[in-house]
């Protein structure tokens, strides 16, 4: 635990978050309210689930550019299963996550066994998935989803929807998986030095593939919860912007771009940082167009700062 906290502190995401929040409290009207905090938490819950997978993928030294499009696919699928075919809730949830798992399996297999670099593979599959979900849905937005499904993510507990608690649970599991399990160790070993890991008898191929499976499954789950949250299923949810948001969160959270190192807590802070910024931009009614630039600026600053620090050390 100590090491986790140290790494988290070292990657500075906590510092950034604290500074941002302070700035928000001081300069942004209506920022400092329980209500607004709750809004930010609600908005962070779903990305927090997705960022977990991206963190793991980055730990292998790869990247998943298809993540956002899995969200869209999952949303479409959820809509169809729950509304059009009205399948039972549990089945819908299971099937949606399964679809994600399949996508991840394809990504992982192509990357691991066909040796196609991850950014090419996922760039390609991303386009493919987006195309598929657009064609399948014929662009129909499915709304008014069955209450039984909505209940999964929206039942109110102590002022927060269940999706938040689901996210907390999954992040906790993820923390354990990455920092306390043999899988996590193998993952980071693979990320540092796949060859040595393989020759030490670690199941590197499985680990690599499984990582992408987990990433896409979590993305699918995120898509499901997003659909529930919005009570509308449509293919252009998520998308490239979402992917970039998640990558930013992970990197701001201190996940190494060279593989091996990743921090769940850090990534979580990364998500919060992003959502706080978005929130402030909206509260201050600044032109939303600033957003991409601001987001990019932050990630660059973090990378540069991080590098310079490591140079100094």
């Amino acid at each position, binding site marked *: 635990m100590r090491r986790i906290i140290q790494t988290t502190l070292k990657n500075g995401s906590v510092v950034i978050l604290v500074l941002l929040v302070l700035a928000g409290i001081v300069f942004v*009207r*209506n*920022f400092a*309210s329980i*209500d*607004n905090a709750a*809004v930010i938490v*609600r*908005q962070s819950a779903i990305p927090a689930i997705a960022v977990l997978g991206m963190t793991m993928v980055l730990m292998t030294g790869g990247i998943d550019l298809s993540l956002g499009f899995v969200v869209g696919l999952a949303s479409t699928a959820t809509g169809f299963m729950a509304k059009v075919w009205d399948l039972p809730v549990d089945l819908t949830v299971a099937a949606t996550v399964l679809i994600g798992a399949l996508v991840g399996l394809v990504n992982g297999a192509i990357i691991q066994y*066909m040796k196609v670099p991850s950014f090419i593979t996922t760039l390609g599959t991303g386009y493919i998935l987006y195309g598929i979900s*657009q064609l399948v*849905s*014929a*662009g129909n*937005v499915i*709304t008014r989803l069955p209450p039984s499904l909505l209940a999964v993510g929206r039942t109110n507990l102590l002022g927060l929807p269940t999706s938040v608690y689901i996210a907390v649970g999954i992040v906790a599991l993820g923390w354990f998986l990455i920092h306390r399990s043999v899988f996590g160790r193998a993952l980071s070993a693979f990320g540092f030095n796949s060859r040595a890991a393989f020759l030490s008898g670690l199941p590197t191929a499985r680990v690599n593939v499984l990582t992408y499976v987990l990433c896409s499954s979590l993305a699918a789950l995120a898509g499901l919860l*997003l659909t529930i*949250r*919005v*009570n*509308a299923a*449509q*293919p*252009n*949810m*998520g998308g490239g912007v979402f992917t970039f948001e998640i990558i930013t969160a992970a990197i701001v959270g201190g996940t190494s771009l060279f593989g091996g190192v990743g921090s769940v807590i850090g990534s979580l802070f990364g998500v919060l940082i992003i959502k706080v910024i*978005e*929130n402030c931009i*909206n*509260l*201050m*009614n600044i032109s*939303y*167009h600033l957003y991409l630039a601001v987001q990019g600026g932050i990630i660059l600053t973090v990378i540069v700062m991080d590098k310079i620090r490591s140079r100094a050390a």
Partner: protein
Amino acid sequence: MISITPKSPIPSISLRNLSKVFALALIAGTTFTAVKQSTAAESSASKGTIALSLKTITNDDFQKALADAVKAKVESMGYTFLLVTAGEQTAVSAQVNQVEDLIAKKVTGMVLNPMDGNAVVPVLGKARDAGIPVVTVDSPVAKGHEDLYITFVGTDNFNAGMQAGKQMVQSLANKGKVLVVRGANGSVAGDNRVDGFKKGLEGSGVTIVGEQPGNWTNSVAMQVTENMLQANKDVQGLFTASDVMLDGILEALSDANRKGIVIISVDGSHKAVDLLAGGDIYGTMAQFPQKIGSIAVEKLVSVIENKSAANSIPKVIDSGTMLYSKDNLDEAKKQMF
């Protein structure tokens, strides 16, 4: 380490053969779909092919309705219908390429919904040079190029927005704060509606306190609405550039349990009319895609068949707009798409 063995020849070779097979299969696949498509297009000996070029029919009931209307009219008049869509909201260049390809294909006539008022100007010139008559619909071509097309049929988005603005002022009794959920960045139609809405508010006591883009997507619309509501506890009204974002907006409102906010939208889709019936929204400025579609095809065909001279047709045909509200539900149910 220098090895005297070539790096594991066996697997790589088999892998490569595999990939060749894949590639071939791929080509085969393409050709197949291609054949299917083309035969579909060429079937039924007809007076010719009339093509409709749209940005997309996805996530957009309006465009779908428009496409259906055009198709019906075209086929009823004995022509073959061909639909090309550019896909992405932003694929401006894709649409231009497609129109060029239609010209190369020598279609008889074209109904065009420009994704960008300027971008289509050069290609419209090419269509004219190739002697292919064009009617534009829904969103207008940049001013000063009226010679390039027969006529424009569509809703005056600015006007629709302005009507919405006036309605807002009226229903808020001339005072209050409103939020605006815009369309996607760079969408002409969306921008016009919002500009019109602002025009409609001019000189009234109603002020816009928050204005963020919803990117035509419910999830984005929901988030920006949530956040804007945090900044403005006391809003009484909300205007959105399209029905497609209503669901997200309503979710945000109910989460923040805000009741009695006057919501006005644009489109007049069946979805909006349902919400209207349920009392979730105040009103939506209707467009009439069926009307747009059939008028456009009528004018186009009359020129193709030389029934009327192109210059005898007015350059702008406003398909009109009207407010659907709980007062005219029955009418709305008849007209909605």
